């Protein structure tokens, strides 16, 4: 394993004394619970902060903090990537976020299509895609990925007005429904969820109340500062110890109960939740965000006949058969359990989607030195 980049060890906690206090509270709480406890977060940025600040070394041995399906690029399903690749090969220009390029479809990625001469633009925002469309005469499809936080931006851009040659291939996903799926998986044994702060900025923390009611599992909304994460975990363990499942907002500086109503209104004017597969996980009822009938004229799936079958003549990469991204995203395996991790599967030559995205568990663990539990948290 490569050593962690030296940048990691230079990181400082804002208030080291506070961090030590929280770490010690985690140890006391885990001891009081008296057995092994697994909690899950569903956000690539949380995993980055945990790995980058070496937080796992401050967690008690009996506390497992696992990353669930929190990487929107990673859970974009193979047939969705195939749709983008097929469109690109049919001669339609595609604009998408950079992380999508290397994500494997059945046999090809967008990067492969680009290498074969297709037009694939990397953009950082939907607004840049709209501008690109304005500057060209042919069709431009925005291959839209990301959770509700990002889907809101796509919705706002659509409502602000787009040129006639612009359409959307939506692979946007909606987080709350997948928590239900993971909670019901018998193998996961997740006893609590840490919800992502900035997604909850949009949806509000109240959205998790029906989930808690149904599954009797606590949810704590947490921010991205190491202290925010530690404080969120302390609250979560307190709820587990006291067997009082409820929603707690440990990130009040960004999250309210009802969330950003204006953003929600725009989101659900343009998109509607629809069931669909998340790569490697399961069919998630209401887990996909697709354009509503009102915006069907901007839906690339309506505008074009997408010939995905043309991709089935190519054999899938044989290594992909051994990829366990799905188990990793469901929280039942970790990157170290994968025979390809750090060997055949590397950020430069990813086999699975989790090694592609900056929010993928495998890429985060690989970059921060293999197993970040061993990282040094300088508390």
């Amino acid at each position, binding site marked *: 394993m490569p050593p962690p980049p030296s940048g990691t060890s230079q990181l400082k906690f804002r208030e080291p004394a506070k961090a030590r206090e929280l770490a010690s509270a985690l140890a006391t709480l885990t001891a009081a619970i008296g057995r092994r406890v697994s909690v899950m977060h569903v956000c690539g940025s949380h995993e980055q902060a945990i790995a980058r600040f070496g937080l796992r070394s401050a967690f008690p041995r009996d506390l497992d903090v696992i990353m669930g399906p929190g990487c929107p690029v990673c859970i974009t399903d193979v047939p969705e990537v195939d749709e983008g690749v097929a469109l690109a090969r049919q001669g339609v220009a595609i604009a998408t976020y950079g992380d999508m390029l290397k994500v494997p479809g059945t046999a090809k990625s967008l990067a492969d299509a680009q290498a074969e001469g297709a037009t694939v633009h990397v953009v950082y925002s939907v607004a840049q895609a709209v501008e690109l469309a304005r500057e060209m005469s042919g069709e431009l499809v925005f291959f839209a990925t990301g959770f509700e936080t*990002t889907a809101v931006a796509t919705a706002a851009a659509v409502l*602000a007005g787009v040129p006639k040659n612009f359409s959307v291939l939506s692979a946007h996903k909606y987080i709350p429904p997948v928590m239900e799926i993971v909670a019901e998986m018998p193998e996961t044994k997740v006893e609590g969820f840490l919800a992502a702060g900035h997604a909850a900025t949009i949806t509000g923390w109240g959205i998790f109340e029906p989930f808690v009611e149904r599954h009797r599992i606590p949810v704590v909304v947490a921010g991205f500062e190491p202290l925010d994460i530690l404080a969120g975990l302390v609250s979560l363990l307190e709820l587990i110890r006291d067997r009082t499942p409820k929603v707690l907002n440990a990130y009040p500086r960004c999250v309210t109960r009802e969330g950003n109503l204006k953003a929600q209104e725009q989101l659900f004017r343009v998109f509607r939740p629809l069931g669909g597969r998340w790569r490697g996980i399961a069919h998630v009822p209401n887990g996909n965000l697709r354009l509503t009938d009102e915006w069907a004229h901007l839906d690339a799936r309506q505008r074009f006949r997408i010939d995905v079958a043309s991709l089935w003549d190519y054999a899938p990469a044989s290594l992909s058969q051994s990829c366990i991204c799905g188990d990793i995203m469901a929280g039942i395996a970790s990157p170290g359990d994968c025979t390809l991790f750090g060997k055949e599967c590397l950020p430069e030559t990813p086999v699975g989607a989790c090694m592609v995205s900056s929010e993928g568990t495998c890429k985060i663990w690989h970059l921060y030195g293999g197993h970040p539990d061993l990282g040094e948290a300088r508390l």
Partner: protein
Amino acid sequence: MCLGVPGRVIEINGDVATVDFWGVKREVRLEIVDEPVAPGDYILNHVGFAIRRIPPEDIEVTLALYDEILRAAEKDDLMAADVRAELDATKTTGDAS
């Protein structure tokens, strides 16, 4: 892709704000933010849109994480790269655009 980035609003022109991110001026759109935003306010930017006005009392603690990431980060650091991508998602101000 789910980490917003804070910046200070310098001026507002309709639905577009000019925002200062660590000395870099960028344009951020205001269609989504649910509170009135004025020059001097801090907002959280995500893929080119302000998603929240940060309450004044929370600005310092919100900025601390980003200061630390950008200060200590190496070129290939994932979190710093995501923060920079958020800035690249905004529009360059003035003549450059």
